[in-house]
């Protein structure tokens, strides 16, 4: 085709190349008419987006959003850019520290993983706590991650910053000081010498300051009777122990330490030369306490008789020793004379303790102890114990002064008297009259919420501090994590307000170097490393405090009566929740009380005869009224309790503690009465109990209370029999075969397992287990055991891998099956820790359709969560019922908001243990993660694991060493040695005759009684 320069044009504009045309030449459609044209506005977003673009964007948006929705949310894992020197991912760091909560003390080791404290263990270097911890100490790590604590200081219930708070508060204090107004610092017992020094600095700056100390569970009477100090008590030296209302294994003063000492006197051995001696333990009390449950002889009295019981005991002892009797009505209760006889017989190795806070009662106890030679032997006045420094009179006086408007400023140093003092309501009414009020409490609790300022203290795991639990024994607290919220240590606050440098860490170190260590920097580091500094070789003093027993007896006669007929209230403390300071800790709320096995509530505990008399049954809601205060709560029928008494626990009925605590139970503090100037946990007059007609379930983890005469479950004997024959009381079922009778365990279909390397096993001594349940909390913390809440416990679905079964004895004959279901009115009690028995012929292993539970080459029954499809056949077929099913997704579900539902709470999770999902079975793994870690450590060092190096959580945390864990293949291990002896003695497997061959053995319980009680 020929080239042509013919040019076609579409319009004159193109031909003439007009500028307007050239400008728009690429705009093919010109100015498209669109919906926005008429209004001159853009359709979509005001930036001129056109319809087509809108559709494109819409399409892209929908696609992008749906793609994004398909993707799993990104969890940020940030590697260390500059790795801290001490932190190796997956390797735990341990720090020595100190747990204190008021007068509770324990020297601890804190396990941190990647900078998070996740577990607390005892520090064995401490000569005071000797490595034992209470359940509360174990649980305290969860309180660190409590999302409901204050996140920063508050002024008038509004968030503020520290500078502002300091400025305003100092100004107000200065104004008060200028007027000469009275300033009070109110605290519970302070164990820390440096903190006391800080308070002294504050007092120096504001001279009108007085420090008022009180305790929610006071031992004021005991200190008063000993001239202002608490003496050291050593049960381990006692042959006869008599306790009048002192729950020394559960709640009284230093229960874990006492339990360890007590257990030493209860340990026996089946070997020929084994120890065949035990202390004899008498308990006289109102409620059936954890201690009473462990006593050899026990009888009950009414609170109004308490002082006279002590006088009667004195008189019985006096009669035998030839001392003059005290005046006072005598109370006839069982075993009192026998107790007196034993006390005198074991003179020099006897001890009497009383739980009463009445100084007059304690004075008579001092006199009894003097008669039986306890001072210098079992009681040492040479070393003072600092656990309870509260002064009931001073506190009562403070509240009266505040009510009278005589107090100008008050600082509550981690104290919550509005809740936990009997006169709390009066204090709450008085607080508005106080010009300046401040609380250092960690949360806006009942007291702090009434204060103008809240300067929240840091958690002890975030803090520097020290403690002097006993005179001359020091211990240090160091932070294991930087403060999570904008909190500041109360000591720093006090220093700041006193106009000093607020660096408490430096202050503490200076104080230690100049006043405690007195040697130099090296020792400070050592002390910090060890957590304890114990320069004082314990001095023993046999000095008997001087008391006027006759005057005390006279005072007692006035306040007590031998035979009152009305209903009486006994206010007691629970082993788990204690005074309620950690009430928002779900581990403690779900802690089954050792004796009642109830959790998530307090209740009106009454005996069966009293319930019958009042026409009440378990679960009936009653109104309990006394002293113008009334509460409504459900009835729990408690065998062993004194007749015509109602027992209510403190620690419940919090209103401003947080989700887990608020509304759980009722506050029993107001029932505490003042007797002889002290707060005594009883209410003996004007008590009424009336049914409301409602019922309420009590969350109990055990609802059948007797052992139904099943000897294969619990085996026991008395000391006299045991001395003659270590196998007395053992139950050996035999089976008749064609070859004559055979032991049930000798008949088997199975080939057995070969354990060529390790064979892990456990021995549990029923004689030393006190049922304290510290192991339960420790296990939950170690193994991420979920808390399920009140309703799920009522549904019988608690998840505890370790539980403590508690059985009462029954008066019925063995054949009377209905009668056996009913506990005695004053039962013998046995505690039996129950966990996966790691059977060698495990019934669970054969029935799992998918092999999710299998036997390891080291004797462990293993659970593979990932493989489990949740048929629950294994749980049904478990004769011990130790398997736990995840009925719901217990973490990350709103109904189960127990600190595992937020990122902060989940920081407590042990990363070595899988968090189980909904629909899978779980159970005790014998802390397989610890076994694995121990084996790996040994392997890296090219050696065998040493016995004791690998410890399971429950064995490690048992205050009485009732649990021995180890390798049964290692002949030198403690467990092998123990079994070698006890196989021919006390060791037995629970329900041995079904021949599941458990790897856990129990050592028969031996009671130090004269005659064995049947059934």
């Amino acid at each position, binding site marked *: 085709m020929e080239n042509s320069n013919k040019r076609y044009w579409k319009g004159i504009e193109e031909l003439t190349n007009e500028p307007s045309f050239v400008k728009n030449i690429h705009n093919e459609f010109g100015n498209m008419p669109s919906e926005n044209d008429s209004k001159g506005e853009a359709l979509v977003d005001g930036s001129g987006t056109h319809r087509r673009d809108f559709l494109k964007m819409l399409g892209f948006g929908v696609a992008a959003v749906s793609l994004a929705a398909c993707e799993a949310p990104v969890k940020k894992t940030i590697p260390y850019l500059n790795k801290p020197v001490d932190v190796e991912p997956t390797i735990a760091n341990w720090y020595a520290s100190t747990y204190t909560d008021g007068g509770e003390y324990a020297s601890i080791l804190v396990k941190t993983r990647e900078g998070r404290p996740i577990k607390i263990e005892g520090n064995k270097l401490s000569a005071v706590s000797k490595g034992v911890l209470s359940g509360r100490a174990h649980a305290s790590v969860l309180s660190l991650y409590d999302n409901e604590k204050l996140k920063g200081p508050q002024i008038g219930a509004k968030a503020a910053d520290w500078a502002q708070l300091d400025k305003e508060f100092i100004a107000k204090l200065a104004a008060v000081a200028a007027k000469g107004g009275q300033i009070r610092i109110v605290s519970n017992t302070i164990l820390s010498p440096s903190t006391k020094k800080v308070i002294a600095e504050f007092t120096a700056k504001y001279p009108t300051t007085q420090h008022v100390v009180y305790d929610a569970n006071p031992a004021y009477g005991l200190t008063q009777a000993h001239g202002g100090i608490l003496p050291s008590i050593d049960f381990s030296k006692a042959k006869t122990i008599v306790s009048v209302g002192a729950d020394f294994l559960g709640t009284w003063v230093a229960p874990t330490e006492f339990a360890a000492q007590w257990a030493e006197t209860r340990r026996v051995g089946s070997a020929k030369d084994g120890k065949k001696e035990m202390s004899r333990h008498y308990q006289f009390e109102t409620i059936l306490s954890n201690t009473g449950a462990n006593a050899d002889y026990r009888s009950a009295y009414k609170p109004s008789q308490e002082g006279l019981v002590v006088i009667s005991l004195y008189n019985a002892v006096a009669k035998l020793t030839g001392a003059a009797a005290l005046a006072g009505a005598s109370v006839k209760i069982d075993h009192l004379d026998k107790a007196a006889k034993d006390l005198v017989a074991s003179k020099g190795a006897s001890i009497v303790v009383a739980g009463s806070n009445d100084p007059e009662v304690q004075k008579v106890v001092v006199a009894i102890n003097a008669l039986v030679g306890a001072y210098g032997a079992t009681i040492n006045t040479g070393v003072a114990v600092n656990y309870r420094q509260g002064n009931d009179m001073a506190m009562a006086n403070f509240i009266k002064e505040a009510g009278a408007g005589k107090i100008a400023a008050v600082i509550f140093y981690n104290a919550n008297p509005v809740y936990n003092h009997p006169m709390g309501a009066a204090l709450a009414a008085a607080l508005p009259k106080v010009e300046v009020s401040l609380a250092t409490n960690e949360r806006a609790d009942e007291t702090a919420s009434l204060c103008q300022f809240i300067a929240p203290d840091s958690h002890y795991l975030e803090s520097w501090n020290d403690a002097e639990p006993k005179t001359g024994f020091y211990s240090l607290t160091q932070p294991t994590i930087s403060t999570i919220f904008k909190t500041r240590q109360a000591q720093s606050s006090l220093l700041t307000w006193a106009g000093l440098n607020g660096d408490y860490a430096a202050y503490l170190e200076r104080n230690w170097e100049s006043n405690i260590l007195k040697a130099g920097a090296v020792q400070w580091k050592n002390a910090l490393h060890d957590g304890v500094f114990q320069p004082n070789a314990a001095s023993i003093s046999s000095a008997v405090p001087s008391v006027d027993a006759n005057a005390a007896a006279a005072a007692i006669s006035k306040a007590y009566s031998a035979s009152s007929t009305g209903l009486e209230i006994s206010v007691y403390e629970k082993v788990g929740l204690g005074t309620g300071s950690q009430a928002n800790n779900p581990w403690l709320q779900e802690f089954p009380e050792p004796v009642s096995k109830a959790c998530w509530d307090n209740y009106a505990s009454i005996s069966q005869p009293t319930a019958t008399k009042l026409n009440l049954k378990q679960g009936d809601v009653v109104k309990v009224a006394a002293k113008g205060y009334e509460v409504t709560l459900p009835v729990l029928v408690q065998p062993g309790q004194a007749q015509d008494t109602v027992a209510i626990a403190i620690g419940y009925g919090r209103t401003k503690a947080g989700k887990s605590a608020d509304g759980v139970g009722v506050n029993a503090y107001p029932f505490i009465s003042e007797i002889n100037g002290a707060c005594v946990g009883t209410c003996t007059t004007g008590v009424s109990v009336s049914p409301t007609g409602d019922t309420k379930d009590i969350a109990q983890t055990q609802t059948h209370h007797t052992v139904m005469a099943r000897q294969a479950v619990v085996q026991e004997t008395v000391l006299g029999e045991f001395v003659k024959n270590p196998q007395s009381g053992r139950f050996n079922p035999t089976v008749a075969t064609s070859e004559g009778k055979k032991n049930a365990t000798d008949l088997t279909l199975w080939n057995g397992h070969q354990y060529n390397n390790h064979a892990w096993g456990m021995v549990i001594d029923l004689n030393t287990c006190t049922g304290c349940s510290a192991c339960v909390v420790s296990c939950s913390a170690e193994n991420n055991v979920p808390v399920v809440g009140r309703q799920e416990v009522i549904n019988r679905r608690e998840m505890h891998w370790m539980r403590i*079964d508690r059985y009462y004895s029954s008066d019925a004959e063995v054949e009377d099956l209905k009668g056996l279901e009913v506990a005695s009115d004053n039962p013998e009690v046995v505690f039996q820790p129950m966990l996966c028995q790691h059977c060698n012929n495990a019934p669970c292993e*054969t029935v*799992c359709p*998918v*092999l999710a539970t299998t036997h390891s080459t080291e004797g462990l029954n293993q659970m593979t969560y990932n493989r489990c499809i949740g*048929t*629950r*056949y294994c749980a049904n077929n478990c*004769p011990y019922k130790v398997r736990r099913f995840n009925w719901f997704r217990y973490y990350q579900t709103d109904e189960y908001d127990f600190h595992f539902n937020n990122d902060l709470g989940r920081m407590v999770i042990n990363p070595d243990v899988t968090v189980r999902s909904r629909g899978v079975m779980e159970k005790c793994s014998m802390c397989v993660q610890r076994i694995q870690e121990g084996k790996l450590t040994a392997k890296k060092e090219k050696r065998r694991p040493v016995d004791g190096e690998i410890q399971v959580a429950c064995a490690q945390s048992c205050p009485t060493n009732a649990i021995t864990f180890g390798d049964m293949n290692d002949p030198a291990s403690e467990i092998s040695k123990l079994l070698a002896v006890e196989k021919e003695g006390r060791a037995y497997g629970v329900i041995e005759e079904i021949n599941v061959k458990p790897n856990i053995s129990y050592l028969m319980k031996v009671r130090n009684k004269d005659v064995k009680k049947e059934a």
Partner: protein
Amino acid sequence: MSHVVSPIREKLVTGGKSYSDVTHDICKQVEGEPTKEWKWAFGISSIVFIYGAYCLFYTWWQGIGVWGLNKTVGWAWDITNFVWWVGIGHAGTLISAVLLLFRQKWRTSINRSAEAMTIFAVLCAASFILAHMGRPWLAHWALPLPNAFGSLWVNFNSPLVWDVFAISTYLSVSLLFWYMGLVPDLASIRDRATTKGRKFWYGLFSLGWTGSSKTWARYEYMSLILAGISTPLVLSVHTIVSMDFATSVIPGWHTTIFPPYFVAGAIFSGFAMVQTLLLITRVVFKLEDYITIEHIEMMNIVITVTGSVVGIAYLTEFFIAWYSGVEYESYAFINRATGPYWWAYWMMMTCNVISPQLFWSKAIRTNLMVSFFLSIVVNVGMWFERFVIIVTSLHRDYLPSSWAMFSPTMYDIGDYIFSFGLFFTLFFLFAKYLPVVNMAEVKSVMKGVSSNFPEKKKATKKTEE
């Protein structure tokens, strides 16, 4: 010499029906408009099904914590229902297979619906297998499927794996047997079809049936072969289900008597369920001439026999519990009769042991209303039997510390209701869209037509009115 003369058999089909009457009577249900009764029945079962499906969905969504189970009682209504439905599912196979082999001709008019009932009951049972799992979405792990983990396999020691095989085999064989029996009848409907849709669908499922002698011969062979395969299944399925309990260590479960006891119980409950359904069907679909009093009576006799076997098993259990001297087993049985669940135990005893004995009286076993009532009573009793075995054994086993009670929640009940909804919805769909009586086999047991012609005419008139 005298010879034995058989008594003249009663007619199995009454009313003087001709072959074409049979075809007409049965097919008209399929071909006609749904009746009002059917609409009501189907409507109610659909509502029940939908409510149950909601409960089941909620259970799956939340987790089986919505049930009343706990750490001690890990199975309750779920497995009770499972065993109950599987038991009910036994009658179908027994009737079609065992009675076929024993040449019991009376079975022909009831075997179709009995087989359908079997299949639906097994489906209901299967729904509980899935529902009772903690993680039902992983149910396939119970099958020995090849996987990426090499040696990861199911546990052939576990009775639950045996269950999986037993139930799935049973379901497949029953389904096959039922479907095969349907083919000639489907072909009849196809041949009579007046609408295109019906022709297509029934044509598709009748697999090109021609009705030639060869096909009929093959049909007979297949029936015999499948009957031969099914017969051991009648015994094996419930034997294996019983082993879920018998091989365990739980007192009250660990019992060697369980396999025969469970099989007898299954036949007992299965016949009762067939009885219930037939008594409804014969009235609703006016099949009195096919499902006669004779049938009802025969069924009642089987119920009495199996009920007595079950009763003896109960007593044997008690005897052995005492005779063994095992304290846990003795307690388990004493606790059943006198413990907190005594009412369930006595419910079971009354319904299962006492009530079938009433059938010794001819007047009672030929009374339709009483038969209907007792057939329901028997199944109530059989449900309680499984509940008693499962719950009262678990709730108080070895360690008294773990003893607990079980009480159902609305989702335990709702999921049970679901299975009823499923069962009846399927059954009514079956009753409407498939011939409820095996026409081909019924015709084979009828006498010649000519002798009865006048009678027949009358009867036809009657049905047409």
